[in-house]
C-alpha cells in the first residue's frame, strides 16, 4: 500500500511516477506477498487472486517507468487510485476474511465464521469481473504493456527516456 501511495503522490504532483528501482521494489513486494500467502495453509486458496493482482500491478509499474512527470495524465492517477481501492477493498479483504476464518475464537465464533465465509465467497465470485474492469481502466490510459514491451523493458529501453530526462535536469542544475 505504501508503494501505491508513493506512486499516487508522485502522479498528483506531476513527478516521475516510477523508476527502475520502483519496479524492482514492486517485484520484491509482490514476491514476498505471494510467498507469505503460500506459506500458510489457510491462505493458500487466495494465491491465484493475489497473484493476478500483483502481476497487474507489476505491469502497470513497468509502464510507469517509461513515463516522466510531464507526461502524467489525470487518467494515470485514476488508474492507480482504482488499483489501490481494488487491493484494499477486494484482494486484501479476501485474505483478511481467510485469516478471520482461521483465527476467530469465542462465543461469536460461529457468526464471524458465517459472515467472513459469505463475504469471502462474494469477493471471489466477483473477482474476475473486477480484475477485468481494472485492466480495462489501466489499458485505456496506456498503463498495460504491448507484448514486445516486456522485452524492451528487460533490455533497459524504458530507462533511456528517464535517463535522458535526468541528464537534462542534471545539466541544468550543474549550469546553475
Amino acid at each position: 500500500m505504501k508503494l501505491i501511495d508513493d506512486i499516487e503522490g508522485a502522479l498528483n504532483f506531476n513527478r516521475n511516477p516510477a523508476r527502475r528501482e520502483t519496479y524492482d521494489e514492486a517485484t520484491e513486494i509482490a514476491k514476498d506477498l505471494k510467498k507469505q500467502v503460500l506459506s500458510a495453509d489457510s491462505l493458500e486458496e487466495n494465491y491465484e487472486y493475489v497473484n493476478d493482482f500483483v502481476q497487474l500491478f507489476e505491469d502497470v509499474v513497468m509502464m510507469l517507468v517509461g513515463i516522466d512527470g510531464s507526461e502524467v495524465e489525470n487518467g494515470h492517477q485514476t488508474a492507480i487510485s482504482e488499483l489501490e481501492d481494488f487491493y484494499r477493498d477486494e484482494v486484501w479483504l479476501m485474505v483478511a476474511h481467510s485469516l478471520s476464518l482461521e483465527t476467530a475464537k469465542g462465543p461469536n465464533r460461529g457468526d464471524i465464521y458465517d459472515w467472513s465465509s459469505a463475504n469471502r465467497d462474494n469477493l471471489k465470485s466477483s473477482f474476475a469481473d473486477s480484475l477485468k474492469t481494472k485492466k480495462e481502466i489501466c489499458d485505456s490510459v496506456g498503463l498495460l504493456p504491448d507484448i514486445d514491451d516486456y522485452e524492451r523493458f528487460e533490455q533497459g529501453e524504458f530507462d533511456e527516456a528517464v535517463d535522458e530526462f535526468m541528464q537534462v535536469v542534471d545539466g541544468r542544475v550543474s549550469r546553475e
Partner: protein
Amino acid sequence: MSLCRLLTGGSRVSSSSYDPSVFSEVFYDTSVLLNYVLGQDDGESKGLLKDHSSDNYTGSTVEREFNDIKERREKVLKSIYACDDLSSWSPPSTIDMSPNDEGWCADLLHELDQLGSRDDIEDRLELEERKFKRGLDTLFEMNGKLIDTVWPNNLDAMLLSRISFIKNNNDRHVVCESADWACSSEADNLITTDENDLLDQRQRISDVVDQNRDLETLHIFSPSEFTSQDPDA
C-alpha cells in the same frame, strides 16, 4: 467456382493456387499466436496480427488450445518456481506436456541456467507468466482485442475424416473450422507456422477441402509468405 464466397474486397494478385488472392481477412492457427505472445519469431506474427490491415479471426479450437497451453505452462512455471535446485527439476507427472511445451521448457531452463541469482530466476519466471496472461487478454479478452473468435456453423464431419492424414487432432479441427469460416467470409487464408502438419501438406489439404466444401479452396500460408505478397503492405 465457389458459390458462397463473395469476393468484395482485397486485390487479386495472382492466379497461382498458392498466392493469396484476398488480403482483407485471415484465420489464425495457434502457432502464430504463440509466436506473437512469446516473441518466438522475428516479428512476422506481430507484423500480421498488429500492423497489417487485415481483419483477424480464429476458431474455438484455437482459443481453447491457447488457453490450455497457457494453463499447462503456468503449472510448469509454478513447479520450477517452487524448485530450489533447477538441475534436479523435472515436469510434474500431472502435466501432459506436448512436444512444443517440451521445447519451450528446454529453452527456458537453458535461459534460467545462465542467470546468476535465485532472484533473477524468479523474476524471469514471473515475467513469462505475465506475458502469457497479457497475451491472452490482448488476443481474446480485452476491449480492442486483436482477434475475433468465430464459432463453427457447419463443421463438416466428412471433411474431418478425409483429412485424417493430418496427425494432430487439433490441427484437423483448425482446418475444418477455417474452411467453415471461409465459406461465409471474403477470404480463404489460414495462417500458420506449423510446417509438418499444415504448411508441408497444404496442397493436399486444399485439394481435399476443394472436393468437400462449397468453397474454391483453402489457402494456407506462413505470416511472412502472406504479408510479402500483399501489394499494399
